[in-house]
């Protein structure tokens, strides 16, 4: 009996340790970029079959797109394919919906195969950004100038007419780079002329920072800006003032 309990506890510990390692790995989710090796051709062949079954209905034969259903994939190339698939935005049920972030619907191997196939037509290669080489302070400046208009200064997202703008706390550095170079959905394009690699590293460092900001000065209140901050001030100050009034006043006997 006791031995069984001990064994169960051991099994539980192993599971917990496994989960901890997995979640730590998931926290720094940084999949290696798709390999550029001779086996690419085989990978791309597998990708072609997957493409025909999953993507061709909307994106057409040879990535040429289908009017009214899905765009051609020739410009976005491997960068766009990896971005849309790894963030779970594709496949999408209704092509007129805004693709939004979800759990990836395909396995890593399938995504790699599709990325290799789409990349074999040319288009943008998968870019990278290295937050370790970036500077958070400079990144915040660049982000404020170029990204915060839509994504909000603390990258909590917002809206633009016609689209929801996603929050960026869950994105990886590579997805930041892909989004900048591709300009998914209604986002403008930030190519190397507009946002050099150094600035991109800075922005990636800042975006990763916004996932756990240090809220210097106190309470973050969700980091969504001055309106909730003002509301908290007013509500707390109003209660405090009522208390002072109550303390000063006297009841008639």
């Amino acid at each position, binding site marked *: 009996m006791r031995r069984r309990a001990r064994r169960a506890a051991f099994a539980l510990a192993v599971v917990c340790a496994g989960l901890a390692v997995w979640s730590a790995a998931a926290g720094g989710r940084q999949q290696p970029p798709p390999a550029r090796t001779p086996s690419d051709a085989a990978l791309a062949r597998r990708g072609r079959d997957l493409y025909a079954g999953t993507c061709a209905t909307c994106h057409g034969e040879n990535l040429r797109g289908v009017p009214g259903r899905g765009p051609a994939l020739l410009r976005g190339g491997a960068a766009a394919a990896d971005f849309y698939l790894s963030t779970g935005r594709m496949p999408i049920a209704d092509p007129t919906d805004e693709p939004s972030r979800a759990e990836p619907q395909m396995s890593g191997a399938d995504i790699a195969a599709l990325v290799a196939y789409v990349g074999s037509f040319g288009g943008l290669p998968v870019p990278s950004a290295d937050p370790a080489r970036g500077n958070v302070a400079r990144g915040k400046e660049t982000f404020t100038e170029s990204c915060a208009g839509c994504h909000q200064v603390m990258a909590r997202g917002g809206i633009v007419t016609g689209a929801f703008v996603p929050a960026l706390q869950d994105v990886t550095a590579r997805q930041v780079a892909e989004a900048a170079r591709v300009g998914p959905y209604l986002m*403008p394009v930030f190519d190397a002329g507009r946002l050099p690699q150094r600035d991109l590293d800075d922005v990636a460092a800042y975006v990763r920072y916004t996932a756990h900001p240090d809220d210097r000065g106190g309470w973050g209140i969700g980091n969504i800006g001055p309106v909730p901050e003002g509301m908290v001030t007013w509500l707390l100050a109003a209660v405090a003032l009522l208390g002072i009034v109550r303390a000063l006043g006297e009841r008639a006997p």
Partner: protein
Amino acid sequence: MRARVIAVLAVIAGVVRGLVRREPPPGLARAEREPDPRKRQVGADPRAEVAVAALLVLGGALAFAFAVLIAAYPQTQLLGATLAAGLACIGAALALASSRVVPREVDVEQRHPVAEEVDEELTQEVREGGAGISRRRLLAGAAGVAGAGIAGAFVMPLTALGPSLGDAPNDSPWRRGRRLVDPEGRPLRAADIGIGSMQNALPANDPSALEDLAAPIVVVRVDPRTLDLPPDRRTWAPNGILAFSQICTHAACAVTLFRYPVDEETSKPPGLVCPCHYSTFDVRRGAVPVFGPAVRPLPQLPLAIDGEGFLVANGPLSGSVGPSYLNVKRAKDVK
């Protein structure tokens, strides 16, 4: 976070409840501890008077400091701190004066109509309101300082209403041949502007550009085949590169949002969007408003590419910058 809100509210509730409970129970016990509030109590407490005067002078000085700071060194935190401290001092002075300095009396109004002689009584009471206060001049002077400080604090912000902008919205630094530079001052090369990208720009060699409402512009590039500009603007967008005033024609916010679709058929056409009220401007038709409260198009800057490949202005802006309430003068802008 929710736990912290609840904790703060609980502390406040506890303090308020404590204050309520501290009040002694009504009846005999109360009469023993405190004098009957129905009896007239004359303060006659010179120390309290000095304290009230000190608080009033301090409060007045802080409020006056606010008025000076707003003109000399308008730093938000400092302004808030001085005005809040000033108001707190004056509030504390009033609270202290009401409990320790002025005579206190509970008056119960009778239900029958107030007769002439009662009025006289009341007048007499008001006249006697200062009984027991020895340093009357000091208190009056201190109250004068407090009043003057507060008046200054409330009058000075009115200066923010002026001076009028005059002709500034129509007086733009953009002239034919002037180069466009990015916010760091580097000239913009046409070849570096990719399709679907957006870039803030200012006039080259203009030291006052950052303070000039008519200086900032946004440069965007769309597929030149999709342009749909009015006939007289056909040559204004070389290679599909367009430039518009960045100041929204609704309420003068900076237009900082640009949307550019991957696939227009399943999403939306390109547009510049103002973050304040989501006015949306169709860049391909010369920034006419297609959504939101703005009614006038963003003024467009005709562009050209010079011999070295840099972007230059090819004429002045097409209209008055900013919202109509900023003194728009050209009749063709008012639609």
